[in-house]
């Protein structure tokens, strides 16, 4: 069954991306879309809308959604806790803080923002892991996340005061999350980053399975937990850092998507990681399409929509866990 799910995810992802590139302030029919797609060099009309606005946006959305979902799946496996998520434990806030610092102190150079966000994500993940300790209890991790998010919020708030109009607009964009104003340039940076991070995680997929039994048993089976953790942290920080740099904070994807996927394909990472990537990508592509049609011509920031979907799902999961004593019983 898992194999057929994996097989169908590719055409479904393509269909979602085509569908999402049809909707927007200028709706396109499928026929228009096909004729526009063949006119790549045309800088006017439907071809420009598809090639310059919609396609980079859906491709980037797909990569970001997939990356965030895979990050959540890997972090949850690493700390053996199904409630861990880059947003919830403060990694996203750490990335945002560094991105904001970079904007205000060094200007809006995209590579600079992406690198600072990556650095922020790495530092925060290690900080949370150090605070949570070896067993990484969820309460400590989430409290660490609360502290880091509060600190990041305070610093970003302070930066709002010293920022000029342009910087203020950029900062607001970061805190709510949006895929507007992206181009092929962002895709060109994001794609190799995503491939690199996916490669890092794929290498440790089996070791992550072993870590589900605990660090002690994993070591006894020949897995070096520290090496696995470093790879997961770097991969997650790559995903989250670049996603935050280009699209701001898009919450709950890393929590909800792997959780749902686990119900269907189980907890083995060789299934969980690729399926989460595709489902997360499809989810963000569709959410982004919805943000464009709710109140045209205005756009609702996508972070708001994912939080509206993710928060109730999270509450449902907590209630379920309370009822059954375990998230998966």
């Amino acid at each position: 069954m898992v194999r057929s799910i994996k097989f169908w995810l590719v055409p479904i992802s393509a269909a979602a991306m085509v569908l999402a590139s049809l909707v927007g302030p200028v709706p396109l029919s499928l026929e228009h879309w096909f004729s526009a797609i063949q006119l790549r060099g045309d800088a006017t009309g439907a071809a420009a809308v598809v090639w310059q606005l919609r396609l980079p946006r859906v491709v980037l959305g797909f990569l970001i959604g997939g990356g965030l979902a895979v990050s959540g799946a890997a972090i949850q496996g690493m700390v053996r806790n199904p409630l861990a998520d880059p947003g919830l434990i403060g990694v996203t806030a750490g990335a945002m803080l560094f991105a904001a610092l970079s904007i205000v102190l060094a200007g809006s150079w995209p590579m600079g923002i992406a690198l600072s966000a990556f650095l922020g994500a790495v530092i925060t993940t290690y900080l949370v892991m150090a605070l949570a300790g070896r067993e990484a209890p969820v309460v400590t991790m989430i409290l660490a996340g609360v502290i880091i998010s509060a600190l990041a919020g305070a610093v970003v708030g302070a930066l709002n005061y010293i920022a000029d109009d342009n910087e203020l607009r950029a900062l607001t964009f970061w805190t709510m999350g949006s895929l507007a104003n992206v181009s092929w340039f962002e895709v060109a940076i994001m794609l190799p980053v995503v491939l690199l991070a996916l490669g890092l995680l794929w290498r440790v997929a089996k070791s992550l399975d072993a870590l589900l039994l605990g660090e002690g048993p994993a070591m006894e089976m020949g897995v070096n937990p520290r090496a696995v953790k470093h790879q997961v942290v770097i991969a997650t920080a790559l995903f989250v850092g670049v996603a935050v740099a280009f699209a701001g904070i898009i919450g709950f994807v890393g929590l909800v998507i792997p959780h749902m996927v686990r119900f269907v394909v189980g907890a083995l990472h060789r299934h969980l990681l690729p399926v989460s990537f595709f489902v997360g990508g499809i989810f963000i592509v569709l959410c982004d399409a919805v943000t464009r049609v709710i109140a045209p011509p205005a756009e609702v920031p996508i972070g708001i929509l994912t939080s509206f979907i993710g928060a109730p799902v999270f509450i449902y999961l907590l209630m379920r866990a309370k009822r059954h004593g375990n998230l998966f019983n």
Partner: protein
Amino acid sequence: MINVEHLQWLDVIHRINLTLKPGRFYALVGPNGSGKSSLLGLLAGTRKPCAGKVSINQQALSQLSLAQLACMRAVMPQSVALNFPLPVVEVVKLGAIHTACDSNELVDNCLELVGMLAAKDKLYNRLSGGQQQRVQLARVLCQLGPLAQAKGKWLLLDEATSSLDLQYQHQVFAIAKYLARLGVGVVSVVHDVNLAAKYADEVLVLKNGELVQQGLVENVVNHQLADSLYNLPAATLKDPQYTPVISVARQEVA
């Protein structure tokens, strides 16, 4: 062969010297806090000694990577809880993550040996504590590989029978004994001295982090052991067919 020389770990293990031979079943006994699990962790190479040296088949553990160690010995912990849904068969296969020997036949054989073959597709986290422990034993057996290739490897059990009913307590020890006959060295931390006496070849007695006694079961397991280790008045019963049995006198609370 496992060689332990002047082993020291924090203030838990004190200057232990020990030689363990493959094909023997060693029971490691001692009161709570005597350092049994710590010593097992040092033998397994998952704890680093503060001083002294542990070597397995003439190779110092400190020179071996975790992956190399995984091919030489398997360790069964007291209990393993899982927060995620993994089928029993996948948990068992994880044992072979570094030995690259996870054929379906081996996995089925391991599960059959512990009486869990019928549950191979069930989710591990829905099993009882005792069933989970049997699945963990199957995983550890899977790590040792096919029985024909297990000779010279080591099986380390840390209170492997703590959640098991009487039948499976005996089954686990019978499996360990069988492996020892095939040439596997077995070291098991055990609280039930009488159970140890039925299956083990030798007993290692640990007290306050020191190895206070080592010898054949018939020379070590007697009422003096209960008295010196646990401060309990006891008698040694003669069981002509099997092994010595320690019978502890009933304790009255004033």
